[in-house]
């Protein structure tokens, strides 16, 4: 007989704790600092456990936890006197894809096919956080654009734009077309 998972047990607290590695990775993508990420993840778990009654069964637990963690992060930034990144609905107008940008060229296509995971991770870490975080949430955590928008408190169109730009930057850097 196989062991039952926390989901099968219906134990919300166990499910929350089991998502700690995911929270840690999301926290790292926000802070780029291991120690800060551990503190953030810990605080988010503590708050989630203390307010389990707020979670609506049937909704995405991971997205709920990520939203808590993001709020903790914003509060820490504010307390430290650091202003969080602000985005607006006008952003898509102000920051469109470059009209000079070309379709994927054969060098870039080959670079993705041949890229080792280590190289992809190295290049990913060079992306600006404002682009890397939406990409992380949607590509790695498999959250929908709407869920990512809710977590980051930005318009869904901005998530779409940033995910696109993040991937294009990643592809260009993998292909070595940008120094």
């Amino acid at each position, binding site marked *: 007989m196989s062991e039952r998972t926390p989901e099968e047990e219906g134990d919300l607290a166990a499910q929350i704790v089991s998502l700690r590695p995911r929270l840690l990775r999301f926290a790292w993508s926000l802070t780029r600092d291991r120690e800060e990420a551990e503190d953030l993840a810990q605080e988010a778990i503590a708050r989630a456990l203390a307010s389990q009654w707020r979670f609506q069964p049937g909704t995405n637990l991971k997205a709920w936890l990520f939203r808590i963690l993001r709020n903790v992060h914003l509060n820490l930034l504010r307390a430290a006197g*650091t202003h969080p990144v602000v985005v607006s609905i006008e952003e898509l107008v102000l920051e469109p*894809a470059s009209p000079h940008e070309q379709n994927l060229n054969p060098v870039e296509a080959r670079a993705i096919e041949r890229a080792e995971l280590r190289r992809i*991770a190295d290049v990913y870490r060079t992306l*600006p956080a404002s682009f890397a975080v939406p*990409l992380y949430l949607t590509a790695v955590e498999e959250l929908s654009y709407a869920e990512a928008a809710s977590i980051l408190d930005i318009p869904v169109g901005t998530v779409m734009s940033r995910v696109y730009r993040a991937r294009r*930057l990643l*592809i260009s850097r993998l292909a070595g077309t940008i120094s």
Partner: protein
Amino acid sequence: MSGCSTHREFLAAIADGETALVPAATLDHVKHCDECNREIRAHQLLTSKLRQAGVQLEQATPERRLIPSISGRLRVLAAGAAVAIMVAGAGVGWLVLSRPDPVRAAINASSQPLQIESTDASQVGQWCLQASGRTLPAIQLDGMQVVGARMDRTASTDIVTVVYTAPSGARVAVSWLERQTPQGSGVEERDVDGHQLLIVHSEVGTAVIIGSSVDAMWETAAAIESAPT
């Protein structure tokens, strides 16, 4: 196939199955466009590899290892009060390093070597776009010549610094901070650690101006304030 440029920004959303967010015209275009389909497949492959990379995405970068850890300091604190005083000092330093004031980070960036050296403004602009993912505001600086740029990432913001020379030979560095919370508009004069600087809050963004000539700095500030949005 022609006309791809108007649809390109939606290709990642299509690759991710978020077609409800994509205009019908784009979906129609993609049905018949080999180039766009190739790019969609590339996005999907990249996503698949990012997922496989998983935990590797968060591994420490070399520069991180230079910063002492909190837990390390806490262990030292437990060792004794005398050591604790030293560690507290180190803690303050760590906080300054890990959550830098964007203005101080801009001052630091302005004194670092350029990562691209070029007098071609469009080439520098393109480099900035590629390095930061941001389109910098177009500012009209009469008689001033761009000489290059650099890109710096800090815990609080990404900073793109563009350096110019004035006809007088004065050097002016304009550091664009990534979307800071608006703090009103206008120009703020500050003296930070002996550096005289101007901070411009304008509709096109927030910039820190540092230079060897106050006149050139103010001319630059005026140009940023009047830049078209």
